């Protein structure tokens, strides 16, 4: 019998108009508001078992022994597996470097590493069984920062490295290092009238998607397995899962289940292999659902970072040079660290013209939690630091911080530190102008005739102030993010588009493996099909591995790349439909041979608007189907010594203005407004675009004032793995977010669009920090800012 919650095709009906550029509504919206949309944790199967993972209670230790006897003896337990039970020689996985053990072997390298897995008939039984597994650890010293990682006698987090980065790093506890040298920073520094140095600390942020890691693995009759899963990239998962199971990829069928947010946290595998192993071992369907505590251990986080910057400028406000060093803590396993290093280094100067730079970014191996992809991906940490620097330099020069930025703003044609020219619009100065021009929220509302509404003051309903000690501050920031996978990666997508007549109407079906994680890719695919094929009805096929790879729902790339693939496949379908029309009806009208033909309103029309045929008649008895890969312009690797190379596909820009009110006595911050201006190239769906910008802005607000995973520096253990202790912004913490959308087309991209999801996460954080600095006069060189940093009691 089939599993409950298997995704079905969603057809958006003829009542739904709307091609690209319109704010059409989500095809899955009704299912999501009625509770019928099946997320991966909602899957259910007759006779299914529940899987549970036992995780290490220490960060760095040798495993002396594992005793599973008591767990196995518990009634209701069907299987207990450890490293010794893995079926093949492939026992590790990883996005780029396969350094992550499926289950710990001889050693654990971080707090919460999977050691054993259990399947039982009730989730509580599985939890109790896991608790009965006895693991004896012999603890090792922990590597927690650059000093301990690179000490002469440092323990190696990974011995015997043979990955392709080991040849160019100075120490085996460095995952990857990327220098960028352009011009001569030392010579340029001599021209500087002012030089500003700063050291900054960026805390560890969690993606905190609300839908926990989960999935259902169903064993199949051919000895394979069908995995229903929430992920960001089905084919990347498949490539990592199949070898560990000892199965050819065709015997591991994967279907995307409902995904409750991602933000980078689902790029790496979590419970995928574990569920499949247990299903194949027991012959029964196995469901695994993390709870929130486990979720904090079950995915990588945003790299915490130390950033060292030096900026120079002439008296008239021109930047002379930038030197910087960015040290990212990659934690125990590589995950996406090498690519994060590439981003952090290549985007470290920000959206400014600087000819002379000396840049270095690196990621460490430590025993802290593994870090990898999160929205903004290396550019977020850099933006926090370079924007703080820009404010400091402006202050040193006695210039307005916005004017100083505009004076140094890049534009189309500017050459990046990597030597890559920016060959599409880069309206950095204009975005700053727009965000500054927005009206400011009224001041000192608590003095109005209605009196103070404490809900709008710092401290809120805690009723800690009625305005006493409250000071306003305003801050600005702007950032630059790359779009798509960089550094020579073959970043393609695939789309299958079918056109046929169903119940007397022409219907287009779009089938891709794109992970819809909430961003609205499915909405956009339907819009593209309507625009290109002139149909009202579009069916979105569930995403699975029965079609070619769509690449990752990451790097602001899916509308560009899978959107591009859908557009391309639609164009090929249109050609075939017109060919069919010419064969059937070409002899009836000369325009079939001579005119430019379009598909519009269910008809074949000439570019002059003359109707030649009904699509229903053209397609009568035939279906047209095309599956095709699509690629954007290729990129190049960065030179390992100089960092030179055309490494990025496209750049994306956003600017923020933050208005905050700070209770300076208690150190409480209320963000009053967080305005954003962003260039999106072309807004395919304006409603979704604004939603992305507001959501990204809020995640930036979170890491400015509250979000941080606290890792004990002595034990490398995570101290706050819960929503009680790791805070994300509530609706009370979040201000109004006015958005100004600019559309300057990028001629290289489909429809001129620009990837948008990440840029707003960059500049939000430094804008809030700048506003708090403005209110308090404090330096504030770390994020998030907590009350004790504002009251001097840290």
């Amino acid at each position, binding site marked *: 019998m089939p599993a409950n*919650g298997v995704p*079905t095709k*969603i*057809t958006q*009906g003829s009542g739904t108009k709307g091609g690209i550029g319109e704010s059409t*509504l*989500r095809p*899955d*919206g*009704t*299912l*999501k*508001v*009625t*509770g*019928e*949309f*099946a997320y991966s*944790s*909602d899957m*259910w199967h007759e006779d299914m078992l529940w899987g549970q993972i036992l995780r290490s209670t220490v960060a760095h230790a040798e495993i002396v022994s594992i005793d599973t006897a008591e767990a196995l003896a518990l009634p209701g337990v069907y299987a207990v597996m450890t490293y010794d039970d893995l079926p093949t020689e492939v026992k590790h996985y990883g996005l780029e470097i396969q350094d992550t053990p499926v289950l710990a072997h001889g050693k654990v390298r971080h707090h919460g590493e999977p050691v054993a897995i259990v399947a039982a008939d*009730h989730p*509580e039984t599985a939890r109790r069984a896991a608790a009965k597994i006895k693991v004896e650890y012999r603890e090792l010293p922990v590597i927690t920062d650059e000093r301990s990682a690179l000490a002469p006698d440092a323990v190696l987090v990974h011995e015997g490295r043979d990955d392709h980065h080991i040849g160019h790093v100075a120490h085996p506890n460095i995952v990857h290092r990327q220098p960028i040298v352009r011009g001569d920073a030392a010579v340029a520094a001599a021209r500087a009238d002012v030089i500003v140095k700063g050291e900054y600390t960026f805390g560890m942020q969690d993606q*905190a*998607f*609300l*839908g*926990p890691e989960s999935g259902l693995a169903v064993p199949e009759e051919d000895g394979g397995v069908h995995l229903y899963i929430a992920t960001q990239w089905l084919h990347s998962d498949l490539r990592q899962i199949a070898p560990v199971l000892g199965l050819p990829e065709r015997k591991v069928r994967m279907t995307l289940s409902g*995904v*409750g*947010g*991602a*933000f980078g946290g689902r790029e790496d595998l979590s419970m995928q292999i574990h569920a499949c192993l247990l299903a194949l071992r027991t012959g029964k369907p196995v469901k695994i659902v993390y*709870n*929130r505590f486990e979720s904090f251990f079950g995915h990588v986080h945003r790299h915490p970072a130390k950033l060292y910057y030096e900026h120079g400028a002439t008296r008239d406000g021109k930047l002379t040079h930038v030197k910087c060093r960015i040290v990212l803590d990659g934690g125990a396993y590589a995950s996406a660290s090498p690519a994060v290093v590439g981003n952090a280094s290549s985007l470290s100067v920000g959206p400014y013209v600087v000819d002379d730079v000396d840049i270095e970014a690196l990621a460490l191996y430590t025993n802290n939690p593994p870090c990898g992809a999160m929205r903004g991906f290396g550019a977020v940490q850099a933006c926090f630091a370079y924007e703080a620097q820009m404010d400091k330099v402006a202050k040193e020069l006695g210039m307005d911080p916005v004017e100083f930025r505009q004076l140094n703003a890049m534009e189309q044609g500017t050459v990046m530190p990597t030597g890559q020219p920016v060959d599409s619009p880069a309206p950095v100065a204009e975005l700053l102008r727009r965000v500054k021009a927005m009206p400011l929220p009224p001041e000192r509302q608590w003095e109005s005739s209605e009196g103070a*509404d404490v*809900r*709008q003051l710092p401290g809120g*309903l805690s009723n800690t102030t009625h305005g006493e000690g409250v000071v306003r501050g305003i801050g600005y920031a702007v950032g630059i993010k790359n779009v798509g996978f960089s550094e020579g990666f073959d970043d393609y997508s695939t789309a299958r588009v079918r056109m046929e007549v169903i119940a007397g109407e022409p219907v287009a079906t779009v089938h891709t493996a794109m992970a819809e*994680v*909430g961003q*609205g890719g499915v909405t956009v695919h339907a819009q593209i099909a309507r625009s290109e094929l002139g149909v009202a009805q579009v069916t979105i096929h569930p995403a699975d591995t029965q079609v070619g790879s769509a690449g990752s729902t990451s790097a602001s790339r899916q509308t560009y790349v899978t959107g591009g693939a859908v557009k391309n496949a639609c164009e090929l379908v249109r050609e075939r439909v017109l060919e069919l029309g010419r064969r059937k009806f070409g002899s009836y009208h000369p325009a079939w041979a001579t005119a430019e033909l379009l598909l519009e309103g269910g008809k074949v029309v000439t570019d002059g608007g003359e109707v030649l045929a009904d699509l229903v008649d053209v397609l009568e008895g035939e279906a047209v189907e095309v599956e095709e890969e699509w690629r954007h312009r290729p990129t190049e690797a960065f030179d390992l010594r100089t960092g030179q190379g055309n490494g990025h596909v496209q750049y994306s820009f956003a600017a923020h203005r933050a208005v905050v009110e700070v209770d300076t006595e208690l150190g409480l911050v209320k963000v009053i407004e967080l305005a954003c201006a962003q260039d999106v190239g072309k807004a395919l769906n304006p409603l*979704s675009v*604004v*939603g992305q910008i*507001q*959501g990204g*802005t*809020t*995640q930036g607000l979170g890491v400015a004032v509250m979000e941080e995973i606290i890792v004990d520096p002595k034990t490398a253990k995570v101290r706050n793995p*819960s*929503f*009680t202790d790791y805070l*994300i912004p*509530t*609706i*009370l913490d*979040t201000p*109004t*977010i006015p958005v100004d959308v600019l559309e300057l087309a990028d001629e290289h991209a489909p429809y001129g669009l620009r990837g948008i999801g990440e840029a707003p996460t960059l500049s939000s954080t430094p804008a809030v920090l700048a506003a708090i600095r403005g209110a308090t006069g404090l330096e504030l060189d770390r994020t998030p800012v907590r009350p004790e940093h504002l009251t001097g009691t840290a």
Partner: protein
Amino acid sequence: MRVNFTVNGRPQEADDVWEGESLLYVLRERLGLPGSKNACEQGECGSCTVRLDGVPVCSCLVAAGQAEGRDVVTVEGLGDHARQRSCGGSDGVPLDAAKGWAAKAGTDSQAGEGVELAPIQQAFIDAGAVQCGFCTPGLLVASDELLERNPNPSDADIREALSGNLCRCTGYEKIMDAVRLAAARQSEGV
């Protein structure tokens, strides 16, 4: 143990319930109502919000046994609940009427055509308040309850009422829009 209670107007009986199971677990895993979500299971995120005898609660923090003999409304019953309210005035729904409600059978994969939504559900779709949608069921139940007791909430009222519901995708702006939209439509009698 066996638990008897009313869910979305329909008497329900759950057997073999272990004493430690939450109301959320029984709804999701035993009664086939997975609409209430399991984002934190510690009462911090509100994604499992249901109404227990009319009061919004985190169903993850309610032991299943505590629901014995009581009335539960989940996101699956929101459309019917709103329809009953608009027919029966603001004093809640008579028990006899409530017992006539039934959860929808099966999944309407045709983008919900033919499904009658509560005004707050339609407003969430129209305002773009749904992205990944995992927080949506809890927010809908909480918003619907707010509009039931306060048909014209101020922005500060909305923020206060929804402060127990985390959303990670939207930045809440479009959720504010959705509640304002539902309130406006309600006051216009649309």
